[in-house]
């Protein structure tokens, strides 16, 4: 067993300042994950050289892998840090901010572009208002439910976007997560009413056709969401839509 937990953390004081690395060593303890170690570290932020530094900034909330806050790059892989168990990680453990998103400070990034993506594709069901109309939604078969449910668990952690070669500041590509939500909304019995609109939105620049089919997204998704299946289904939907558009039956 190891005596230490050895961390190499990529730090950055602000969005415009250069990044730098710092190393830390904490006494080994069982039952630790990356967040719990960062919590210990902030009580005593002293580098391997013995320098007292400012505590590392990072984001976390639920600690159960459902809120999506704590995603970062751990040993080069984008993933939630609350479920990254120390005993399973090769040391030194490399912690870096989630790639592709602007750094706010240290491991804290700005993921607002994910929200913008969701708005762009109208990732919601149009309802008259949030009041009771004395009727629910149309029925959904258990089989259909179980497929939809896979997609409704997307927590906007951003791992799929971080791993996608097409996504980033260099491109307009909307990324896998918002696309999967189009798949979800288009399957809902009343969400279908706006299917055409959503499809047109992902047929524009930065949409579905920018996907390079690298399949990284599905490999890193912590919730095992079948992102590439969604993208495949959307491919068929948009092809059909393009034909309908062509023959004026939008």
């Amino acid at each position, binding site marked *: 067993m190891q005596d230490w937990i050895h961390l190499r953390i990529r730090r950055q004081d602000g969005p415009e300042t250069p990044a730098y690395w710092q190393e830390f060593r904490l006494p080994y303890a069982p039952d630790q994950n990356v967040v719990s170690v960062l919590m210990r570290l902030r009580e005593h932020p002293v580098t391997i050289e013995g320098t007292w530094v400012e505590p590392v900034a990072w984001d976390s909330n639920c600690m159960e892998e*459902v809120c999506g806050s704590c995603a970062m790059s751990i040993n080069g892989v984008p993933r939630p840090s609350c479920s990254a168990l120390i005993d399973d990680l090769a040391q030194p453990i490399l912690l870096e901010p989630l790639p592709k998103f602007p750094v706010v400070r240290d491991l804290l990034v700005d993921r607002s572009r994910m929200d913008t993506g969701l708005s762009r594709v109208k990732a919601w069901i149009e309802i008259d208002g949030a009041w009771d109309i004395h009727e629910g939604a149309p029925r959904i078969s258990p089989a259909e439910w179980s497929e939809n449910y896979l997609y409704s668990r997307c927590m906007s952690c951003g791992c799929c976007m971080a791993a996608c070669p097409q996504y980033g500041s260099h491109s307009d590509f909307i990324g896998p997560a918002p696309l999967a939500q189009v798949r979800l909304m288009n399957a809902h019995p009343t969400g279908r009413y706006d299917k055409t609109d959503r499809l047109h939105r992902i047929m524009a620049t930065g949409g579905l056709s920018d996907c390079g089919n690298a399949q990284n997204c599905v490999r890193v998704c912590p919730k095992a969401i079948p992102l590439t299946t969604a993208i495949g289904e959307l491919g068929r939907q948009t092809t059909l839509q393009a034909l309908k558009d062509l023959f004026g039956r939008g």
Partner: protein
Amino acid sequence: MTAAPKAIVIGGGLGGLWAALRIADAGCQVRLFSLFEVKRSHSVCAQGGINAVLDTKGERDSIRQHIVDTIKGGEYLANQPPIKSMCESAPGLIRTFERMGVTFSRTPEGILDQRLFGGVKNRRTCFAGASTGQQLLYGVDQQVRRLESQGRIEKHEWWEFLSLLLDEDGICRGITAMDLRSLEIRAFPAEAVVMATGGFGQIYAPKTTTSTNCTGAAASRCYQQGARFANAEFFQFHPTAMIGTDKTRLMSEAARGEGGRIWVPRNPDDARPPHSIPESERFYILEEFFPSYGNTVARDEASRAIWRVTRQMGLGIGGSDRVYLDLTHLDRGFVSKRLGAILDIYRKFAGTDPLSQPMEIFPAAHYPMGGLWVDFEPDASGGMRPGSLRNHATSILGLYACGECDYAYHGANRLGANSLLSASFSGRVAGESATNYLKGLARATAEPSERILTEEVERQTAINRRLMESDGSENPYRLHRELGELMTSKVGVVRANPELEMALAELQTLRARLGSASLGNSRAWANQTLSFTRQLGDMIELAMVVARSALERDECRGAHYKSDFQIRIPEGKFPGDPEYEDYRARWKANNDRWLKTSVAEWRPDGPAIRYEAVDLGVYPPTDPRDYR
């Protein structure tokens, strides 16, 4: 020109998003504040489900029964008109969630499935796989995004509410908030403010199932500015949370329900792996303490038994705060099928498999029944009058509260799957009240005087400056750990007055020590230590309310347990027996004395507590609970 009246909602969990939707639907402009993207709010943690009577299981379930279960579950301490209205509205809320696209689990016929949940006899709980809270929150999050795209809601994510703007008459006229990146502090005038900032489990950290942001600081700030805080002594502890140093994660009741056994080695120094400890050397805690119920005793009883064995008898595994929750004797296939979600969480966060090795658990602070005091207006039917300005109004005019940060629905103990319901329902009600308040304002849109804004911004800025410049010897994160340890040991599952007095004294010391905290973080950009240190001060204030309210309440009710004041049912005696009738008389006398809401008001030297009558108009207590 009169602009659309402005409302502010603070908090983007279920409560806050429902409030925002309701206000925007009524045509008023809303500003929505949250510490982070709203969809990351603590509401996502709820797995189990949400209660609503749909009566689709052939069990003759009724709304009346839901009302009675809620009232009894809270040991009569909650005002009954709001409960009545909540239970009546539940089916409509579920239908609305369904229209929003929430992926509720289905029956073979494609309608919403319902399951059985703790403390009730009927299948009444809707669920969405094993992530009900997440799915419900996303439903309203999507609707808020829809209205945002129409410019009807304006989100301020990564902004922290700091204080209320109160005018000369003590009326709430807006808030101050801090941008968590630039640390800029700004005043946001508004005619109505809705607090929906969630619970405060973090005062027990790390022994809590709540998210790291559930500090209660926002509610505490309102309390310190004069809002009343009610029933703070009632905190639900969950008996089986898996061990963690960051937080402890909930292992649902189902683990015990399906045959899980709780035990410790009879010898706490026994270092053998659990499976090689012979039966004769195991102490099956619940089976020995409760021969007739065994491992399925109620939450509270289980928590107290584990407490007794670890903290009083010193029999925790290796002398620590741990006991085994064992599933290894059960059929693997059966367990995998029935408890899949628990197994996944445990494997993921502990790295071991509960099918081959017992889980290690301990009770954890789970849900505060107490919160900001809110009003209601009863109507002739015994419910809450729809549309009344008083519903969910705090004691500060213009300030409303909903969700886990209010105290309204759960009395002395919360029924499982009732708080997603109360958060949603109360959010909608608070939104409606705030809207009606806005529409009825005589002074229209007169802005509060500039002086109020600048003075408050200055006061908040000065707090930041002092903290940034302080170079004392205390580390705020370590102080937080001490706070959690103190609250867990002395204001936790089992309480006694001498310890509560000590706790109050120690809280005073913590408060003083926080005065010499050093941030070790001087950058005026995304400075998390600054924001946390401020929150810690507010957590200590709240902890004082909890401890003081607990000290003053000399009885056992719901989650509040003081062994010195327990009134026991005489063994083997039943109604009609003189001993039982004597017990009934004591029970009645105790209710006359203690069936009251405790209401705290902030004072510089600690909270002042007084008591208020409970509205028992729907289902008054006539008989003690008797589970025999």
